[in-house]
């Protein structure tokens, strides 16, 4: 029987959030998303306008997945190219169908932090959010994701959550701002996140804009997800197990990333998780 890794299963969940026909963008430093977009384009969504972060190449055929996004290898055989202004204008005018965002902190309404930890004083400076702040407002739909949902217990015996009650800083917006304004009250073009994909579970967002657990992996359960999630969430009445990629998809993902760049998103221990398909 064939096996896929948790990484491959998760990439497939990301790919499944892509509808055919729209403009889909991946930012830099997002190997899981890069693979997911190319997987979707080669399977159920051949007509997406696939725009590569950093190079702004449209529908390229990368030679292999490079660990740094602004490499010519990622832009090879692009059908055409955009630039930073045109890509962000397309989003701002409501013409970006979907964008993918991650964060070191993700709250239950889909607000993200990738700027800094520390509320009163800066305790950890992160790389920054790139265009995520703007695109979280502008893109029609967002897929949120993290490959580090599972918490570890630190020296003081405390869990450091990725899925938190409150972000220290809001780099990009979810369904409700921290001062309580619902997304609909804002002049954004986009409708916000409709999926949050992690290595433990998949959430959608309910009518109140709150994350709702809809899918588990074959080796996870609700209790486990609750343990590793600081915010409260509802469990869908139709809770199910994620679909898994087929052999062709897995083969594509492996050939696309010969350096295994996408594995760097995961702890070593996670990468021991394999599923039969």
């Amino acid at each position, binding site marked *: 029987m064939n096996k896929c890794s948790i990484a491959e299963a998760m990439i497939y969940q990301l790919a499944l959030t892509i509808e055919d026909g729209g403009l889909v963008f991946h930012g830099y430093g997002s190997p899981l998303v890069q693979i997911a977009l190319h997987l979707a384009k080669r399977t159920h969504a051949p007509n997406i306008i696939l725009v590569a972060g*950093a190079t702004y190449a449209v529908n390229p055929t990368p030679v292999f997945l*490079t660990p*740094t*996004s602004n490499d010519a290898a990622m832009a090879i055989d692009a059908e055409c190219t955009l*630039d930073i202004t045109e890509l962000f204008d397309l*989003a701002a005018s409501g013409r970006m169908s979907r964008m993918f965002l991650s964060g070191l902190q993700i709250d239950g309404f889909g607000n993200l932090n990738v700027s800094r930890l520390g509320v009163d004083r800066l305790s950890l400076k992160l790389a920054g*959010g790139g265009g995520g*702040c703007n695109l979280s407002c502008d893109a029609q739909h967002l897929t949120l994701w993290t490959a580090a949902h599972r918490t570890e217990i630190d020296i003081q015996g405390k869990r450091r959550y990725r899925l938190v009650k409150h972000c220290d*800083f809001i*780099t990009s917006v979810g369904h409700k701002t921290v001062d309580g304004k619902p997304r609909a009250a804002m002049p954004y073009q986009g409708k916000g996140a409709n999926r949050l994909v992690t290595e433990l579970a998949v959430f959608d967002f309910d009518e109140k804009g709150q994350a709702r657990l809809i899918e588990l992996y074959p080796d996870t359960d609700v209790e486990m997800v609750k343990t590793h999630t600081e915010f409260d969430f509802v469990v869908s009445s139709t809770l199910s197990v994620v679909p898994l990629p087929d052999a062709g998809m897995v083969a594509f993902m492996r050939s696309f990333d010969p350096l295994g760049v996408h594995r760097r998103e995961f702890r070593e221990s996670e990468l021991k998780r394999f599923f039969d398909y």
Partner: protein
Amino acid sequence: MYTATDKRCTLSELISHLKTGDCLAIGGGLSCREPMAALRELIRAGISDLTVIGSAHGIDVDMLCGAGVVAISGESYVGFEHDFGMAINFRRACESGQVQARDNCCYTLVQQLRAAIMGLPFMPIRSVQGTSFMALHSEYKTMICPFTGDELVLVPALSPDVALLHAHYADNHGNLYIEGAPVADMLFAKAAKKTLVTVEKIISHAELVQKGITIPYFYVTALCELPFGAHPTSCYPLYAYDRKHTQHYHHCAKQGAASFQADYLQPFVYDCASHDDYLARVGASRLSELQNWQHDWLRCYE
């Protein structure tokens, strides 16, 4: 508007247009086409207290932070992605308070540069509100749109004192040709008060026209021919990103601020009186490998 017939100068003359305290926009992005030789010269020249602005940056901004010449960062990303992760010097400088982290977002920056390019005091933008960037940037204002009733954010014009770019080709007059992703280089050149350019090769105007002109001459203040001027970042198709050198750089940074000074800045910046000295230190065989990336592209990353 810069109309001198011959813009060519030495690297130190080029950098003499940049002053301590300037707002600097650095061309290129991530591991691609950063004006690294000019940044090394800037450090040697003792210029400091810079405000740096940009979208997606890596070793360029990190090295300036490691050399202690940055006061404020208005970048939207500084890091090494999944290659090496965090930008250690940048992070250290921000966390110690040496650098004030005034993060920006890509499109906000684009709109601020556009305001400068169009001579407007500001540009309106729908996004940003609802995020913590509003508190971080008290210079942003809001307005109620008289057409729609929507609340819009007004972000002020941003005109960097200097745009520092690295291009593939130029003519003596300063017309530039850049191949591949232009990142924000054109916006920077149009918005900045001065545009300083290092270039792989200066060619005749006729040859340049054949390739196409990316940036017209009149935005360009001064120009310095500097082969491998982007090393260790890439300048495809001329040469690939020097991942091994960057790995060494990142390793030195990881060992601490003092180690970074002693093991990286000393040999590769301070001890190199000229760009040629630097290239000699990197070694001709290594440079030749980078030029021959197409023989085995994957190998550049192994």
